[in-house]
């Protein structure tokens, strides 16, 4: 069957898998991984140029048809996120922004309150805003009001590969929020990405798992397949889990119907 495209801010995407570009050992692995998973949206960050040593710019390794999503990593409050987003936009590449406001170095949990403030400001300035949050219904509703293009709830701590620890809370957002839900952070294996899609998430973003795999392009491909499989399962009307068994073979016409069991 043909699936409807993922639509974010009026733009259609065939792929429902977003790739983060951090932590790759080399640019070839990154470029091969983008090709292998077919992502049409990839995240990048903005940093001070290292004046001491020359590094090849990452943009040279991202195909031109791919939408760049600049994150505001490093921002500790709304104002800092706004500043980073404006700098990215000034480059001519980045009016799609993933708001990431973090003020905690141990758990790297996003500050939902500051994220909402930044979303409000940047949406009003014409940015396409994809805010990264701890899954919370009220924060998500505030983001809808603030003009967000998606909501990106975390599955578990960034880079932890723990999967969908926040599953029930993400399900609430999928059920209640009328924007694409992109599950981000903590997705450490294709099975976890498939699980998010089976629940009805609209897309999944992964980075650390792929970038730190022994063969990043191979895992990127596996993630893309898992996201597709999970999506098809969701569209199929996946039956609910049960707490007890239900036979899959008929319960009549047994050969031993006339012999009482011991």
């Amino acid at each position, binding site marked *: 069957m043909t699936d409807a495209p993922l639509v974010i801010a009026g733009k259609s995407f065939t792929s429902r898998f977003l790739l*983060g570009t951090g932590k790759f050992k080399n640019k070839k692995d990154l470029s091969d991984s983008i090709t292998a998973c077919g992502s049409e949206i990839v995240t990048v960050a903005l940093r001070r140029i290292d004046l001491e040593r020359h590094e090849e710019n990452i943009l040279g390794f991202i195909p031109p048809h791919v939408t760049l999503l600049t994150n505001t990593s490093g921002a500790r409050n709304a104002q800092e996120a706004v500043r980073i987003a404006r700098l990215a936009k000034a480059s001519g590449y980045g009016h799609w922004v993933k708001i990431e406001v973090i003020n905690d170095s141990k758990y790297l949990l996003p500050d939902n309150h500051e994220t909402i403030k930044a979303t409000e400001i940047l949406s009003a300035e014409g940015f396409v805003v994809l805010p990264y949050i701890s899954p919370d219904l009220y924060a998500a509703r505030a983001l809808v009001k603030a003009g967000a293009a998606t909501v990106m709830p975390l599955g578990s701590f960034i880079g932890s590969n723990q999967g969908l620890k926040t599953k029930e809370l993400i399900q609430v957002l999928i059920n209640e929020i009328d924007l694409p839900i992109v599950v981000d952070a903590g997705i450490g294996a294709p099975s976890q990405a498939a699980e998010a899609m089976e629940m009805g998430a609209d897309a999944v973003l992964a980075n650390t798992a792929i970038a730190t795999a022994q063969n990043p392009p191979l895992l990127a491909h596996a993630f893309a397949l898992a996201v597709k499989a999970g999506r098809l399962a969701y569209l199929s009307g996946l039956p609910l889990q049960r707490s007890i068994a239900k036979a899959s073979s008929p319960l009549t016409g047994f050969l031993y119907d006339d012999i009482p069991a011991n």
Partner: protein
Amino acid sequence: MNIIINGKSQQLTSAKKLSDIVSSFCKQSKHVITELNGTIVPSDQWAQTNLQDGDTLELVTFVGGG
């Protein structure tokens, strides 16, 4: 003249335009974004922007990130 570039103090021998600074400090100017004293300066204004003693300049670009 002394200016702060990316948090570090730099001695410049003569008055310089922003376009000169970008080409002398960055190997490739294509994806460079500049912020002078907190204000973004678009690349088409680099040649007309003169730096003053005590200025704070940020030279940033895109890197890998999740």
